[in-house]
């Protein structure tokens, strides 16, 4: 398909775009061509400049140098609206919708259906429902967006962008909070748009998805364009190497990159392979935390859960199956209305995050924008916040020690930041995520709950983080791992609890399940009801 469009002129062309922020050259002479009727994927490590490029393209930032050509004409989009009027429609990395407005309004705001000059609410709701139904989402569109989990919000953002009859559609990591089924749906929608001749610029960290949909791939590295390739010409390993740096990079990097590439490719295979590396078998371990009948009306049906010392417990399940809710209850972020939690055999009342932290639990939330990052504060301050909270307000951690910790973790997790005093808000999405992970790692918790910790993190970083966490696990830290990426869960967990319909659906030891069988467990549950 890409071949057919090759001959036509590009709809959108970027020439030598540069953009610097104080202390960072985010983009340096980047050029890019988008042809009608193709999916063009932008790949690169965290902080490579992908989001910045998109923001320049859509008028959020003004480039320092360079040109944007739309159908051969130079344009200077001044705002998102301006870009939209030029036929460029965008879904940004951080969901940019209004939580207080209804789902339908979020889709239609700015282009309401009207009757007698006023907004036609009924027809708007109907159209919105239909639109979402095309993506197989059946929800009450008249409720405020804030009612729904991040994934739904993401789908709403995508539906919104589909509504404009745009020539160019830009999606910045739209799939990071979607599960596989939804990704498939999204892709079939995108394929349809491609048929109609739309040019699609797509950003993702998932190699599978890249290959499933792209015609062409542009790799970015350190704010520069590394190269542009036809998807069919570029192997996974090559791609990863190009993102990470020359193949001549250190052996370790290349090796881990390859594992990552391989891991993403063949999930079940590597699960067993990784299993060999795993810690001691689950059965022998001591129980750390035991929850009995833990539940909350309307969110989670009473469930039992046991987490053992030094084990990685995976929580698998579809979107909205209640994983996040379970994690929040364990952490005391929400109050449970049934059940008990005991830690080290003693019953504990975890009624606030403080209690949980005191009991040695850490929780890395899935919603980094609203529940994680304190945007105006520096990387250092964000990083030590939980540790400081635990040691109490009066015992301030000396600045020296803070800096040392921050430097240490910036290095250990490969956080790309101008300095540890940079506000976390100006870091790229993936790097913010790493800082938040570090926030919990410095507290040296006995149990770390990771809710979608690898969301928005590039392949190599993902591998590094999982390696890091696995190593901690071996040293005795327990981990509750929640991820929408089934292969990843299967690969790293010692045990897996599958959740569906907001209750625990079953517990399985490593190796007892593969991807298809998990899906079967979930499906079987559905048949039961």
């Amino acid at each position: 398909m890409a071949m057919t469009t090759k001959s036509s002129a590009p709809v959108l062309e970027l020439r030598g775009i540069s953009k610097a922020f104080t202390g960072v050259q985010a983009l340096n002479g980047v050029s890019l061509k988008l042809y009608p009727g193709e999916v063009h994927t932008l790949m690169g490590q965290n902080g490579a400049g992908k989001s910045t490029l998109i923001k320049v393209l859509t008028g959020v930032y003004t480039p320092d140098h360079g040109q944007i050509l739309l159908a051969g004409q130079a344009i200077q989009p001044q705002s998102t609206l301006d870009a939209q009027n030029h036929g460029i429609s965008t879904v940004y990395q951080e969901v940019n919708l209004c939580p207080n407005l209804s789902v339908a309004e979020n889709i239609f705001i700015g282009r309401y259906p009207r009757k007698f000059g006023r907004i036609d609410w009924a027809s708007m709701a109907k159209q919105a429902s239909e639109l979402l139904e095309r993506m197989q989402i059946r929800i009450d569109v008249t409720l405020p967006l804030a009612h729904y989990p991040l994934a739904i919000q993401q789908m709403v953002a995508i539906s919104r962008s589909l509504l404009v009859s745009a020539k160019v559609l830009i999606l910045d990591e739209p799939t990071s909070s979607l599960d596989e089924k939804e990704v498939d749906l999204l892709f079939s929608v995108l394929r349809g748009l491609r048929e109609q001749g739309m040019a699609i610029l797509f950003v993702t960290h998932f190699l599978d998805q890249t290959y499933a949909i792209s015609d062409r791939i542009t790799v970015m590295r350190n704010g520069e364009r590394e190269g542009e390739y036809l998807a069919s010409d570029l192997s996974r390993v090559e791609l990863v190497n190009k993102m990470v740096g020359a193949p001549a990079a250190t052996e370790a990097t290349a090796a881990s990159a390859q594992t990552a590439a391989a891991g993403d490719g063949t999930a079940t295979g590597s699960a067993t392979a990784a299993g060999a590396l795993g810690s001691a078998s689950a059965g022998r371990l001591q129980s750390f935390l035991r929850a009995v009948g833990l539940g909350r009306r309307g969110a989670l049906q009473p469930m039992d859960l046991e987490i053992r010392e030094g084990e990685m417990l995976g929580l698998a399940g579809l979107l909205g199956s209640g994983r996040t809710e379970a994690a929040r209850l364990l952490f005391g972020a929400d109050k449970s209305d049934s059940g008990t939690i005991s830690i080290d055999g003693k019953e504990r009342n975890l009624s606030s995050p403080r209690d949980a932290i005191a009991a040695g639990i850490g929780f890395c939330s899935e919603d980094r924008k609203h529940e994680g990052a304190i945007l105006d504060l520096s990387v250092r301050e964000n990083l030590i916040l939980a540790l400081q909270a635990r040691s109490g307000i009066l015992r301030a951690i000396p600045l020296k020690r803070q800096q040392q910790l921050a430097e240490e973790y910036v290095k250990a997790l490969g956080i790309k930041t101008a300095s540890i005093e940079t506000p976390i808000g100006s870091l790229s999405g993936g790097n913010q995520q790493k800082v938040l992970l570090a926030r919990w790692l410095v507290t040296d918790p006995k149990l770390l709950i990771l809710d979608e910790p690898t969301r928005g993190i590039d392949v190599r970083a993902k591998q590094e983080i999982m390696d890091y966490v696995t190593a901690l696990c071996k040293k005795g830290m327990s981990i509750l791992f929640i991820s929408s990426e089934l292969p990843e869960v299967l690969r790293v967990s010692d045990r897996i609890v599958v959740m569906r319909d907001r209750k625990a659906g079953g517990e399985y030891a490593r190796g007892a399940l593969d991807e298809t069988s998990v899906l079967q467990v979930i499906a079987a549950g559905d048949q039961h009801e």
Partner: protein
Amino acid sequence: MFLHHPLFRPLAALAILLLIDLILVPGFFHLEIKDGHLYGSLIDIANRAAPLILAAIGMTLVIATRGIDISVGATVAISGTVAAMLVGGTMVMNNGVPEYVANTPMWIALAAAMGAAVLCGAWNGALVAGLGLQPIVATLILMVAGRGLAQLFTDGQIITVYYQPYFFLGSGYLLGLPFSLFIVAAVFIVTALLLRKTALGLFIQSVGINPVAARLAGLKTAVLIFFVYVFCSACAGIAGLMITSNIKSADANNAGLLLELDAILAVTLGGTSLAGGKFNLAGSVIGALIIQTLTYTIYSLGLPPEVNMVVKSVVVFVICVSQSAEFKTMWRRAFPGARGGKA
């Protein structure tokens, strides 16, 4: 480099105001020793600004948590009234000779006044942190009722104090400088140390920027917010003592009237955003000095009272606009050569 310092612009605004005084008001910078202490316009400004600075310090922390406290004036009235009533003293005529008698030991009066102020803060804090009322309405309640309470204590009378030691607080001198300045300095230093040497500053900012994330990171958000309101009221309480001591009487209806607005103005002029989060304590102090200098300048210039407000508002507009980053960009675009080198 210092051009980028957050204090640069408030300081520059203050400097320009003083420059105007230097040019237009003869003898503005004249200082002399009178009765063994310094005497002059600058001393007046500092002395007058003291209660405002105190209120601004407290308000800064409240604003940093995304809150606001519009009951500061009422708290000033309450604490001042309580102190004045307890210290009190009455004038009795003894054979045509006036004689002053004090009522309660001064330290008890001061403690009671501060206690009343802290109670006010606890009330506000409980409403905001405990009940989750919106700060402006929560503190509106005390703003309306507080002055009423103070008047209730005094039966609507102005309570005149006849007790010499009490006057020291607001109009005494130490080492040739107004004693109130020492109080302000002490409060400022204690607050700054508290923010620096403990994690209070970090926590307050975190709560102000993202309360949800702060809670999930294990902060006691409610306790912090409660504390901040108590602190603000305590500052207001000291300001109340200072004001009553300075005019040797407590005027429940007028003491600290609209002080909250000036305090909020001072905080913003000092570069702290009302949206919460990052704050600048020293900036608030400078903001308060800007306001007082401006008021004093208006008096000194002999402007007719009708134009006071217009002048004040225009100056505030000018300072705010000149402080905005957007204005700087526009300015640079308009005069590329003029400022290019500096920035």
